């Protein structure tokens, strides 16, 4: 049964996506309702679709000391870590608590598979080419291994790889470990970069749209794939904490199908109820929900119905995938970051891309950007295998 949790402080957080590097680039794009999707110029073979690509990743190799970790995914991790004072915040936590008391808990779907794909494109005598003979990057744990190495941490180090719920679920891992006293702080978050596996994989499932994605539009026709990185530093909250608070989470399984959501949104609803119970709040307390809202036909249908039946009309809801694309294993942390920014700035993000609302959507949907006092907010993440997560946050200084 869900245990009510004590709020945790989000001591630092940051994200980098097609909207730019760091928090202010994201806040400006959301305030101006300016998306970051562009025609696909990434895949090794032509694939007509739109993508959310982070500019400049290919021009910024890792510093020499991290050469063994070199690949696009870890480059984006490194780019992301360097924004918003995040590195300094982690170093201060390491100093405060010690290297074995800070965990690295990161979500990813494909990690550095892009480098493995590249190796297969230019095999040497049937083996990985010399420059890619680096076992550390040909495994799902590459990202977490890299981040633990950057900060020289020796606490628990875990990769959660539950597809598109990955970097939301790591908040739950962190809460459990902190509550039980195993650690004092955790770096949570995740990174996923564009690669042929996801572009051609989702294309094979006929889930990729030929145009920019339109979440919750009556005529939506598929997802736009993006890349992103994001991190948060989670610690125990103290009396009078001025950081935003992580107040609840829910996790559940659909037990329905590998790549289609439960038709009644059962798992999503269980995750939502779990999150509300742990946070000690009711649906009516929720001011904003950052929806999973991929713009796939089924996913949006199920989520729209869940929101329409569960929340009062005053709750605001939108998907931000029209801004960034679906960043897969990084979607959880990117959208948690956008949720925290929405509360910080009092701005409900527009549901960018939709022109004709799906009639299933309730009055909660914010089709255009709105100004609002947002004290408590949720972020939904659903993944392949029917894996659902819901996170609950409270604004800086707001009591849950």
């Amino acid at each position, binding site marked *: *049964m869900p*245990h009510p949790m004590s709020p945790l402080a989000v001591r630092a957080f940051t994200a980098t996506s097609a909207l730019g590097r760091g928090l202010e680039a994201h806040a400006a794009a959301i305030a101006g309702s300016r998306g970051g999707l562009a025609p696909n110029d990434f*895949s*090794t073979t032509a*694939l007509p679709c739109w993508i959310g690509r982070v500019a400049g990743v290919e021009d910024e190799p890792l510093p020499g000391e991290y050469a063994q970790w070199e690949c696009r995914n870890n480059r984006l991790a490194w780019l992301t870590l360097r924004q918003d004072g995040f590195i300094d915040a982690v170093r201060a936590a390491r100093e405060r608590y010690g*290297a*074995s008391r800070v965990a690295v808990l990161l979500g990813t*779907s494909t990690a550095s*598979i892009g480098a*493995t*794909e590249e*190796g*297969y*494109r230019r*095999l040497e005598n*049937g*083996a*990985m080419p010399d420059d890619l*003979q680096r*076992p550390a990057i*040909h*495994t*799902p*744990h590459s990202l*977490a*291994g890299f981040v633990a190495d950057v900060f020289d941490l*020796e*606490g*628990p*180090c*875990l*990769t*959660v*790889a*539950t*597809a598109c719920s990955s970097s939301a679920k790591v908040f739950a*891992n962190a*809460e*459990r470990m902190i*509550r*039980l006293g*195993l650690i004092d702080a955790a770096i949570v978050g995740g990174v996923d970069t564009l690669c*042929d*596996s996801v572009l*051609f*994989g*989702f*294309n*094979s499932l006929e889930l990729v749209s030929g145009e920019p994605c339109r979440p919750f539009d009556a005529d939506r026709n598929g997802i736009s794939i993006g890349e992103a990185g994001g991190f948060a530093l989670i610690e125990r909250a103290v009396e009078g904490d001025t950081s935003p608070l992580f107040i609840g989470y829910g*996790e*559940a*399984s*659909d*037990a329905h199908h*590998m*790549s289609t959501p439960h038709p009644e949104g059962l798992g999503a609803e269980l995750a939502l109820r779990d999150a509300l119970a742990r946070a000690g709040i009711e649906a009516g307390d929720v001011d904003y929900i950052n929806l999973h809202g991929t713009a796939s036909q089924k996913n949006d249908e199920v989520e729209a119905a869940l929101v329409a039946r569960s929340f009062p009309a005053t709750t605001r809801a939108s998907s931000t995938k029209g801004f960034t694309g679906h960043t897969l294993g990084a979607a959880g942390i990117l959208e948690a970051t956008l949720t925290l920014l929405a509360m910080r700035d009092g701005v409900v993000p527009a549901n960018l891309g939709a022109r004709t609302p799906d009639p299933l959507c309730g009055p909660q949907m914010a089709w255009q950007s709105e100004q609002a006092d947002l004290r408590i907010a949720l972020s939904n993440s659903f*993944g*392949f*295998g029917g*894996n659902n997560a819901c996170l609950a946050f409270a604004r800086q200084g707001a009591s849950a």
Partner: protein
Amino acid sequence: MSAALTVWVKGIGLWAPGTPTWHAFREVATGEASPAGNERPVADVLPPNERRRAPESVLLAAAAAGQAVAMSGLNAADLPCVFASSHGDQVITDYMCATLASAPAELSPTKFHNSVHNAPAGYWTIATHCHAASSAVSGGEESFGAGLLEAATLAVADDRDVLLASYDIAGTGPIGGMTLTTGAFASALVLSPRADGAAIRLDITPEPGNSAGEASGDAWMDGLAASNPSSLAVPLFHALAAAHSTALRVPAARGLDLHIDVETVP
């Protein structure tokens, strides 16, 4: 000093080449039998159609998990689960990367959705009608210990019985040349925060440093333990088979071991 996490073992499952069940492994570990044959994992939790089509990683994880849940007498539908694997299904990774290098538009949609690291967790929850939380984790070469730490943490934090399954398969193709995994191995435990008559207790404490991994002197066990990251579970399962109290260390991350006191409860 008391342990950071105390959990009781309610169910055990295992598949290794030559010992396709926990019972077979225990007989080998106690010297009553020798490893024999190389039977396919029996994943009878999966419906026959799924079993026929399932990739090796799913069969392997479901076989071990099914044994552990059966021994526990609990209902799989009620158990949150953690599926740990260092490399996931390398046969599918090899297929994906080879196809993407030659004819990306011909990628198989089924292979793609089976390529996600949480495919075994997904198939397991679908087959057992489990709506509880499920997770799929990797901890690199220390995946077994990382998964054990996560599962024990979940059991104690939420006061619930939890299923842990840990698996890796043999590598193949160029990816196999990187992972150097030579065989398949899976293990599973149902861990409980309460004794409820269980015969074995694990007192688990994370400790700095990596000093786990000395050889046991048993050539078969040591060969098995070296075959892939998930088989770093072998010393713990050897201790569970011996059924007397002992202490050992299992690596859980770079620079972090789990000190585990295995206590048999009379």
